[in-house]
């Protein structure tokens, strides 16, 4: 049986819009196993970002539990939460959110700043992660000198800096063109396959979602449907379309030539 890394039980989040209550999340239950690549899909206003914020401990639920690595983080005080965010969670944002006055390497080092890693270790790790995301040699470049896809790669490297239990990606392809969109999805998928990184990605793009392992459909703050994605077969190094053997870095199936 797979180990559960993240579990949400009866999760609810209510906002007050003036005097009106808005239920962004309503009695939501969710479970993510270690090493899974999960997509959360839903239309605008369905509560996708709220769910990700609550799961990522940057927002508090109104009710229910969020159990991350066997700790109920919903009840933790702020002085404990930042440690959870630093050590257990990696965030990837739609708008990348890189600090413009730091170069790629420094941006990746940022989450490691308040850890016990030495400066040399941090630099080494940042270089290693930038290499993993395919940005070797671009370490000294500031975000302004990187393309949108490259910026998102830096953001993914940053999310992996402290070897988190889970990477939460909020519309990671939302600001990218088609080419970069697939590259980022493939990068996340490869990280999932090669490093075993657990990824939960929020998206409204069904094509992106289909490349994950499991797709959860969110509507009115509840998970209404769940379906299997193409990534499951890919993980077994099989083409999800024709069943031919594939390699992790293949962009297209060698047999059917469909985009993986």
């Amino acid at each position, binding site marked *: 049986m797979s180990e559960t890394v993240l579990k949400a039980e009866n999760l609810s989040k209510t906002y007050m819009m003036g005097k009106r209550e808005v239920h962004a999340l309503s009695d939501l239950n969710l479970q993510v196993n270690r090493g899974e690549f999960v997509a959360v899909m839903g239309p605008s206003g369905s509560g996708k970002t709220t769910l990700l*914020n609550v799961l*990522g401990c*940057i*927002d508090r639920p109104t009710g229910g539990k969020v159990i991350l690595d066997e700790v109920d983080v919903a009840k933790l005080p*702020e*002085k404990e939460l*930042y*440690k959870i*965010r*630093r*050590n257990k969670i990696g*965030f990837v*944002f739609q708008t990348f*959110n890189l*600090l*413009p*006055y*730091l170069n790629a390497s*420094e941006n990746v*080092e*940022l*989450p490691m*700043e*308040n850890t016990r890693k030495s*400066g040399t270790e941090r630099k080494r790790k940042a270089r290693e992660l930038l290499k993993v995301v395919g940005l070797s040699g671009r370490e000294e470049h500031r975000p302004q000198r990187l393309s949108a896809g490259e910026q998102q790669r830096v953001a993914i490297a*940053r*999310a992996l800096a*402290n070897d988190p239990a889970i990477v939460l990606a909020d519309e990671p392809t939302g600001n990218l063109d088609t080419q970069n969109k697939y590259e980022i999805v493939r990068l996340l998928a490869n990280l999932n396959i090669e490093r075993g990184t657990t990824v939960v990605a929020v998206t409204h793009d069904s094509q992106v979602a289909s490349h994950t392992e499991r797709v959860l459909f969110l509507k009115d703050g509840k998970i209404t449907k769940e379906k299997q994605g193409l990534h499951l077969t890919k993980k077994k190094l099989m083409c999800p379309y024709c069943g031919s053997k594939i390699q992790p870095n293949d962009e297209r199936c060698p047999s059917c030539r469909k985009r993986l």
Partner: protein
Amino acid sequence: MGALTRAVRNISRRKMRAFLVVIALGFSLAIMISLPPGILANQESTQNLTTNYDNTVNQMEQRLTLIMCVNGSSSNTTSQFPFPYGGRGGYGGGYGRFGGFGSQENYMDETVAGTIDSISGVEAVVPILDVPEGVTTQTFTGFGGRTFTFNVSAYTIEGVPLNSSLVADDYVPLPTNITQGRDLQTGDTEVAVLSLNNTGYFGVGVGGEVNINGTNFQVVGVHGESGSSAYALGQAADVRTLFMNISDAQAVSGLTGEISAINVYADNSSDVSNVAQEISNEFPTFSVTTEESELQTIENLYNSTMTTNEAAVSQTQTVAFEEIIVAVVATSLIVLFVMLYTVRERTKEIGTLKAIGFSNWNVMSQFILEGILLSLAAGIVAIMIGSIGAPTLSALLLPHIANPFSPSGGRFGGGGFVVRTGGAGTPGADIATAVATATPTPQLMLIALVAAVGLGAVGSLYPAWRASRTRPAEAMRYE
């Protein structure tokens, strides 16, 4: 790469803004470090003035302990106007003891001096012998053909005692404006100091000899029109007075044992009226004159001037204190508003930092550090501005205190009094000059840097706290 590097990068990211903020803060801090030296200079200057005043007034009080005694009623002997021919109008001014228009001296026995010396409260007694010489009768025809006849002296012998203690204590009325040669000294005999006018009359100068009634006197000095050291109020010395030892004067004028006037000095100004009264009682025929009214006037002026000065210095300190408070508040407010703006501008960054694991303290210290760095840079700018511009800033921001000794604005200048400060006094320091030399000390510069850091920290505390309290989920939504 730590918080410090990030702070420096962030500040340098917006160079023009940082420059303007640093300049604004720098000026505020420069005011803070420029005013204390200005105040100190003002205080020092005022202290100099006070010392000067004290010296001067003490000296004047010493002079004003003078009681002048002549034999005979004052109506006989007093000339109210300085008169260039004969008499001592020049020295005496309003108190001249010798009639200018040929009035007769009433000589007295020199033993009177000893009697007066024994009166309680007497500090010194200086007998003087004035003898008009070369008297000729001149006739003057006035309006309406009326003819006036009067005696005019060619010169006046001024016999003064050259007793060592009297000379040393400056009680002897010797000429002060020696233009050639030297003044009379203790023990001089058969020497004379001539006026410029005398040199023409006798046709000799320093080194020559003058014959007076058959006795030759070596001319050792020539004096111009000047005050005599014993007459502090500065009336011009008689242009025809010839100074010599009193014993020589008595000998050449055939007035052995005779004197024409006595200058009596009381122990202090409070004894003057008592001593004068005692002399009047002892010698009812004497005309006894004091300078109490002048003393009172000077004391009043002194007191009112010092009160004005103290009030002005106190006002300067108050104004400076208020200006420093304004500068401190302005510095803190500049930092506060700039950092508040920065926090607002970087809300999304704050949200990101918190989302990737920065604690409240990490975020807060980042912004405080930025505030401190800005202020520290401003502190350095302030030191530069202060080093160069402290005198200007002080002069602009501190109230000006008029120097009472200055000829234009002074209370003793230009108008009624000319104060002779004498040997002990030095010219009153000009406050404007004192301020102009005021520069911040190294200690003050160090304080400025510490203050800059402190104000930077205080000013950025609230914005940094606000930043640290930002909820990441809300910050992420901020555009």
